[in-house]
């Protein structure tokens, strides 16, 4: 797929301007990938060849937690340190109309014309998780473009949690006092994926209680038999996807990462410095403990699976044979002959011949 086909001339030109650091080229490249236009995977293959180096931070949590404002504060602070920042903000596509209202840019009006920040709003476009496969690919594009930091802001519902760990090195889970209690956070699977918890709008009533509950819940986990496994890997991404692991994780450093619970007020910027410092500390830990490699391996594995799944689906349903058998099969079932299983068998047999 990738080595056999060269880049189209259009993509060659695009790539040249991309490598020159032209934002408009990044924007175009993102559209190519997001729309899965012809040759997009070849384009990704080419830009990803140099490997990841940006520090990727994902922000997830329930709607209304103030993630956008927090991301804006964090981005502004990184800019103050003269770092180049890419932001991907994801909002849900309406299942009824297929359209989307992407409103995260608004929180970032102050940095809107800063040439060192690039903000891209994306809609989930029918993906059930909070991030489409293409969202993760867009993050890779931004990394390849040369940003020091890539911030990912997700929708915060459904299976976002797993998705965002596949895109980010550090996952920040943002809650607000109205989010409910820590038990709900645990049920939602947030305990397993968070590297850092932030209680935003910390001036609201109930925030101290939520912080306490979260800390208690985290200590419980840490005190359990799972002590040796860093909390970040409470969910074994590899195992979540298949029964057997075929890859061996490298030897883990001693000492886990203790998940902190921070408080912020995104409107006044209180607590943001501490959050940045904590993100920095997590990054250092990832590198020193070797977990950064584990994470990247898992990301690569998930990506390979995603892409293969995507291609298989595409190949299958682009095939005239398959579509014909499908239509005929549905007619047959309506007429009382056959079941979805017998039809599927026929299609598979035809494709795998």
């Amino acid at each position, binding site marked *: 797929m990738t080595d056999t086909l060269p880049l189209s001339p259009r993509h060659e030109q695009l790539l040249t301007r991309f490598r020159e650091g032209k934002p408009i080229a990044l924007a175009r490249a993102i559209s190519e990938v997001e729309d899965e236009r012809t040759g997009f995977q070849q384009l990704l293959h080419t830009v990803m060849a140099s490997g990841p180096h940006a520090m990727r931070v994902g922000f997830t949590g329930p709607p209304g937690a103030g993630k956008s*404002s927090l991301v804006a504060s964090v981005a502004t602070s990184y800019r103050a340190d003269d770092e180049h920042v890419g932001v991907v903000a994801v909002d849900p596509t309406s299942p009824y109309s297929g359209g989307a209202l992407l409103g995260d840019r608004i*929180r970032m009006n102050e940095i809107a014309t800063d040439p060192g920040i690039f903000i891209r709003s994306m809609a989930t476009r029918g993906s059930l998780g909070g991030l489409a496969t293409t969202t993760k690919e867009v993050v890779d594009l931004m990394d390849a473009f040369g940003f020091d930091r890539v911030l990912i802001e997700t929708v915060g519902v459904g299976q976002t949690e797993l998705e965002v760990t596949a895109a980010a090195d550090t996952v920040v889970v943002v809650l607000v006092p109205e989010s409910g209690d820590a038990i709900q956070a645990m049920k939602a699977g947030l305990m397993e994926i968070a590297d850092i918890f932030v209680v935003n709008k910390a001036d609201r009533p109930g925030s101290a209680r939520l912080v306490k509950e979260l800390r208690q819940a985290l200590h419980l986990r840490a005190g359990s038999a799972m002590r040796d496994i860093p909390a970040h890997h409470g969910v074994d991404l590899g195992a979540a996807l298949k029964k057997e692991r075929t890859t061996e994780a490298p030897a883990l450093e001693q000492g886990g990462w203790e998940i902190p619970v921070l408080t912020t007020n995104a*409107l006044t910027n209180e607590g943001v410095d501490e959050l940045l410092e904590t993100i920095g500390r997590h990054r250092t830990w990832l590198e020193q403990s070797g977990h950064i490699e584990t994470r990247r391996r898992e990301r690569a594995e998930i990506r390979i699976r995603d892409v293969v799944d995507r291609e298989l689906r595409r190949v299958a349903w682009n095939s005239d044979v398959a579509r014909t058998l499908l239509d005929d099969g549905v007619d047959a079932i309506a007429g009382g002959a056959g079941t979805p299983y017998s039809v599927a068998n026929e299609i598979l047999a035809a494709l795998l011949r």
Partner: protein
Amino acid sequence: MSTIEKDLLGRAELEQAVRDRDREIAELKAQLAEWEESYDAIPKRDDLFTTVSGREVRPLYTELDRAESDDHTDSLGVPGSYPFTRGPYPTMYRTRLWTMRQFAGFATAEETNERYKYLLAHGQTGLSVAFDFPTLMGFDADHPRSLGEVGVCGVAISSLADMERLFEGIPLDQVSVSMTINGPAIILFCFYVAAAEKQGVDPSVLRGTVQNDILKEYQAQHAWVFPPEPALRLIVDMFEWCSENTPKYNPISISGYHIREAGSTAAEELAFTLRNGFEYVERGIARGLDVDSFAPRLSFFFDIHNDFFEEIAKLRAARRIWARGMKEKYGAKNPDSWRLRTHCQTAGVTLTAQQPENNIVRVAYQAMAAALGGTQSLHTNSMDETLSLPTEKAVRIALRSQQVLAYESGVANTIDPLAGSFYVEQLTDELERDALALFEEIDGMGGVVPGIEEGWFQQEIAASAMRQQREVESGDRVIVGVNRFTEGSGKLEIETLKIDPAIEQRQVAKMAAMREERDAAAADAALTALTEACRTQENVVPRILDCARAYCTLYEIRAAMEEVFGAYKEPVFF
């Protein structure tokens, strides 16, 4: 006759009266039942039969609807007495008609000054200043953000010098002036007081209003400068200073107009406005002010939309709700504190660009509703305002509409003529109930400021706006000339007002000259003192007055305060 016999006779009469009454009601019910049968049997025309707010309107209202309402003396009363349902004053238009106050302003102070003199000559009885966007947002005409917007939809006032030009030849001790400005209101107010000073007019005789209602800006109009808490502090500073220095002046006009124009329903307009008003009262009380020292000068500003009866009922309900709140909750003792006085403006949002002459008719009906609702002052829109600022001719017709209403229609002859109408009293009660329910919701969120931070107001308003848009686009809600009766809706044939683009350069030049001529040291000193005052609890009005007299510009003064208060970061909600 013995007392006992009289007593028994009295009781017998009473019992007879009750039996008579019961019989009347039974008869009415029977008649209604018959009527309902005929009503149901006859086909109806295709219509929603709702108000623009979406409130269902029944085909018939009767005495029976009133039977469940409050006791009449408690809720209706007489004009000029608690709870003021029938009007804030005992004599209303029998003593003095509502003030005919047409909002005006454009280009430079000189041009607007001419328009004011024109309006006064044509019988307008009070002035109302419309500022341009840079001024509304606290920017000088020569600020880079003002490019292209100077004088375009209001008058450009960047300093005391402009304010002096605006009122040149207009005696401020005789003409009441209303200024529509919010974010930087306190600054423009000080320019006005200083301009009056220059005319030799003492502040104690000044009459007028400054809108200065920041809460509705966060909710609807979005012309803010500072964040909520400092903005509210400035407003209370004005309450304090004005109650001592300008006792005839209204330091605030608590507004529903903008909330309604942004898309809310009548009930939302009513509830949000009054709840904002109560919030200001609470802030004044929290400062340690005696409620009766500032509440009498709180004034209001409502929209007059298309549904004739709903708007009348809305004003009546507003007076009653305000009176009850002020007396029972906030313990005000002075009846002036219970009395809601309001300016009204016909709804801009109902004007159409198609067949603009129809707007004259819309405005006439809306003006009538305002008069029947008991407004104290009224602005009627001009027919061409969907296209641009009004021409002289259009503004004259709008003013004449009020004059015909006042002098020819007879509605001003008697007070609150619709009182007792089964429908209007029912509507008044319903609006009051709806508003109280919304108060509960707002209190549940912790009050107005938390509601604003959550985006609750903004979302409610946007949802109502969307519903109304759908009604119009589906054709369920008819707008003449737009979605029905469109013959004649072609290209516009009327003249519209054009603003000379050279205005901006002239204004910039004037400002440069002023900066040259003024005492730079005095200006700097005044600004520094202001910034310091912002850090403390000191009332900043005297400091801003000093800045005004030193010819500091609007932006300079705003920036001096922003150093301490910061600028508002808008959370956006759909």
